[in-house]
């Protein structure tokens, strides 16, 4: 099967190269035959890569340990669930996964894009083929083929890293990959628009769903990554400003900026240059993230094994950046705005400042990530840029962004009048003020947490006000009940009200992040029957009592588990079972260092998080870390709401395509104004 896989890779590579050439030349020379051929090449590349994926999965499931990749990432006793995910657990397999998903997305884009965008499609096919061909070339020429064979056949494989044996890790990488990869489709359309010189709002309509889709995948992928880090790594947090985490945040920030600024182009015909730059930048950042993860240029716990594929990505990044921005610069005269901003106090201006902050945060994250390299180049001194740096720089910016999340929707398009501003801001500001008062009276003194909660309440006030006004208007106009009005409001204007739901999720996330300022933890050595107490920020006293340790064998691991009884103010509320795990292969041989498996009791107000560190002198006297993490459950809840809002925004429907196209190019014009 590996021969079939290798043939699939080579075939896909050749098809990719042909698709790239035929697409670009077919578009420029207006040759329908070449354009058709490029389209078919994308489909065929997809087919060949799917054959390669099937071959690798076959090898994985049949424990063909003669294949180096199979031996490195699986073992006979690895659960099936994780055997499947071993496809993208390693560098080589994930490259194959990336190229395959890209070709699937490319095929879907070509099939689903309406006919009136057909002039763009040859270029789209060309760009998708070129990117896919690059990824395949890394596998073929960068010694990164997942089908390489060993000189001997081991009895059993090494098994999957224990930290990857978690459901979060099965879904987190593909989601993030889907986010990264799907940005290629909007990028391909942007390049197509530049090449074809069709730079009106039409291409934006064609990519609207794709930009939302990649933003949604990135959002879900990032949240799942946070969840995985929290439940699996055992350090009691979910974001460590690791370079690879930062790399996933960068395109998310620029895509978020784009999703806001594109509204200005659709409604007013402004910011064409900016929007194109954002799309190109987002894609380049997704490649940059891949470069960071795979090159080993920056130290990260998430990195794949250091290899020479980093040079491929660096070269590709530089070439793609130069070509894209050269083309962009060449087309700048065609990107003049159709309208001008009329007032500083307008939604357009607030969106621009929102973009400024999003890009500013992206820049500061990028700057912090690369600063160690810069420092070493300039000073010859290695430095570490960790969470203290990122928190100091980014928390104020994040809070300013949260403020703009509330301010933007309150300001009218084009020009806001003073009475309008008063009417719009009164309720949200009052809500924010009250929330501040309540938390101050409750004794909260942490400045950033206080500001986060105050601003969160303000934004929530904005969202509730917008929903209430909309529902009331429908109720008055159509006599609908308020519940029905709310439902129809959402259904008829998914983009606007779905966006508000996303804002609600963001508020919840910010408030939940603020909760970590009140994290409490302690270490203790407990014999069976001994207890330790910890006071939560809400004033409860939690008592953790060790009930003893036990050891047992599971499918692919030997487990040492503790039983810890938890009491809140003297009342038992449950048991926690943190574990130490020694993973073994099919012959019972240890495969990795023993790992910790935290046990978490998630409550609405706070999480109780217990880690079993180990034991003293082989006795039942165990070393624990007990942590109380306030509001963590709300991080996952906020992430779910963000995803739900994103889904509502991109849910199909809401009128015919023609109407949507007309709306996209619609500009608000009053009588007597051009």
């Amino acid at each position, binding site marked *: 099967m590996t021969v079939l896989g290798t043939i699939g890779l080579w075939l896909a590579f050749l098809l990719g190269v042909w698709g790239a050439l035929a697409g670009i030349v077919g578009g420029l020379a207006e040759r329908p035959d070449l354009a058709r051929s490029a389209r078919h090449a994308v489909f065929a590349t997809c087919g060949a890569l799917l054959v390669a994926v099937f071959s690798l999965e076959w090898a994985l499931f049949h424990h063909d340990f003669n294949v180096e990749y199979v031996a490195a990432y699986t073992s006979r006793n690895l659960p099936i669930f994780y055997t499947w995910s071993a496809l993208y657990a390693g560098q080589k397999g994930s490259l194959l996964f990336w190229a395959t998903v890209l070709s699937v997305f490319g095929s879907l884009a070509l099939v689903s894009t309406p006919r009136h965008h057909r002039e763009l499609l040859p270029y789209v096919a060309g760009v998708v083929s070129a990117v896919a061909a690059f990824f395949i070339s890394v596998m073929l020429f960068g010694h990164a083929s997942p089908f390489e064979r060993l000189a001997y056949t081991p009895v059993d494989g090494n098994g999957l890293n224990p930290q990857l044996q978690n459901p979060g890790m099965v879904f987190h990488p593909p989601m993030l990959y889907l986010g990264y990869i799907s940005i290629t489709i909007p990028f391909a359309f942007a390049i197509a628009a530049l090449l074809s010189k069709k730079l009106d709002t039409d291409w934006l309509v064609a990519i609207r769903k794709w930009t939302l889709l990649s933003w949604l995948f990135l959002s879900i992928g990032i949240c799942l990554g946070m969840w995985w880090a929290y439940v699996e790594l055992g350090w009691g947090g979910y974001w460590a400003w690791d370079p690879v985490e930062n790399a996933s945040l960068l395109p998310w920030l620029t895509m978020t900026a784009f999703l806001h600024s594109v509204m200005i182009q659709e409604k007013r015909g402004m910011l064409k240059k900016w929007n194109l730059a954002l799309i190109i930048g987002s894609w380049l950042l997704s490649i940059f993230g891949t470069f960071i993860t795979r090159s080993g240029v920056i130290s990260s716990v998430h990195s794949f094994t250091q290899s020479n594929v980093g040079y491929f990505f660096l070269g590709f990044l530089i070439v793609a950046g130069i070509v894209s921005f050269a083309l962009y610069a060449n087309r700048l005269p065609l990107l003049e705005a159709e309208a001008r901003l009329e007032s500083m106090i307008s939604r357009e201006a607030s969106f621009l400042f929102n973009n400024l902050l999003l890009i500013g945060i992206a820049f500061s994250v990028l700057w912090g990530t690369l600063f160690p390299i810069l420092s070493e180049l300039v000073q010859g001194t290695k430095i570490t840029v960790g969470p203290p740096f990122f928190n100091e720089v980014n928390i104020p910016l994040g809070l300013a962004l949260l403020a703009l999340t509330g301010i933007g929707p309150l300001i009218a398009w084009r020009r806001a009048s003073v009475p309008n501003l008063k009417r719009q801001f009164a309720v949200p500001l009052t809500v924010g003020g009250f929330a501040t008062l309540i938390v101050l009276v409750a004794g909260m003194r942490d400045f950033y947490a206080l500001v986060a909660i105050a601003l969160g309440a303000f934004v929530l006030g904005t969202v509730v006000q917008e929903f209430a006004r909309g529902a009331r208007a429908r109720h008055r106009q159509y006599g609908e009940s308020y519940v029905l009005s709310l439902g129809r409001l959402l259904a008829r204007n998914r983009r606007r009200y779905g966006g508000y739901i996303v804002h609600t999720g963001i508020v919840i996330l910010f408030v939940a992040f603020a909760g970590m300022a009140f994290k409490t933890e302690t270490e203790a050595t407990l014999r069976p029957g001994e207890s330790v107490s910890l006071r939560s920020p809400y004033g409860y006293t939690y008592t953790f009592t060790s009930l003893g340790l036990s050891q047992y064998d599971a499918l692919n691991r030997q487990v040492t588990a503790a039983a810890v009884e938890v009491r809140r103010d003297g009342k038992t509320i*449950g048991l926690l079972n943190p574990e130490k795990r020694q993973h073994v292969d099919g012959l019972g041989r240890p495969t990795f260092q023993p790992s910790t498996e935290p046990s978490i009791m998630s409550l609405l107000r706070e999480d109780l998080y217990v880690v079993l560190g180990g034991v003293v002198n082989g006795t039942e006297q165990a070393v624990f870390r007990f942590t109380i993490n306030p509001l963590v459950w709300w991080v996952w809840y906020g992430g779910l709401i963000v995803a739900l809002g994103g889904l509502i925004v991109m849910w199909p429907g809401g009128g015919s395509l023609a109407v949507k196209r007309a709306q996209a190019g619609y500009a608000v014009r009053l009588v007597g104004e051009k």
Partner: protein
Amino acid sequence: MKAVRRYAGTTVGSRREFLASVVAGLVTTLPPYRATAQDSLPGTGPSGRLWDPSRAGRPLPPVTAADNDAAIQAIEKQIHCTCGCNLDVYTCRTTDFTCTVSPAMHRRVVELAEQGRTGPQILDQFVRERGVAILMAPPKRGFNWLGYFVPSAFILIAGAVLTLVLRRWARAAPTASPSGPPSAPAGTPDELERLRHELDRLSV
């Protein structure tokens, strides 16, 4: 998946059964994490030995007061563990219990603190011994100032430029309108304001 008991001692074995019955009782009779008045303590007899201690990872020393000392923890959160984990010493030593680097660094911090050194002095000592990369964030001096101020400067300058550009656009906007008569009769200012409100309300 069948759990295999590994305890040899009978006293431990009975406790296991007792614990299992407590867990089973809790699971079957109560919703998760609801308070109960049940006392599930097994008593405080002499602790037994594990069947196979090696499965529980590296043997650990008992926790001391210094391990939970807030001042020590605050210092350790500023020191980068050099085991390759990218975490600070405190987080690494309380997370990765296989790591031997962070416990050693922790012992060094405690040793320096016991010598009467203050937090900054301990950090300085670490920098002297291991270089500036030992700090979780670059110290605010010399070239490192760039690290802290470039992002803020970038945003301030970009914000200033954006404000200037927007102002110029806003000022130019009325002159961009044609001077000829309107193609349809314009409304009163009140009507235009109302229309703006309506359009705003209906806008996407």
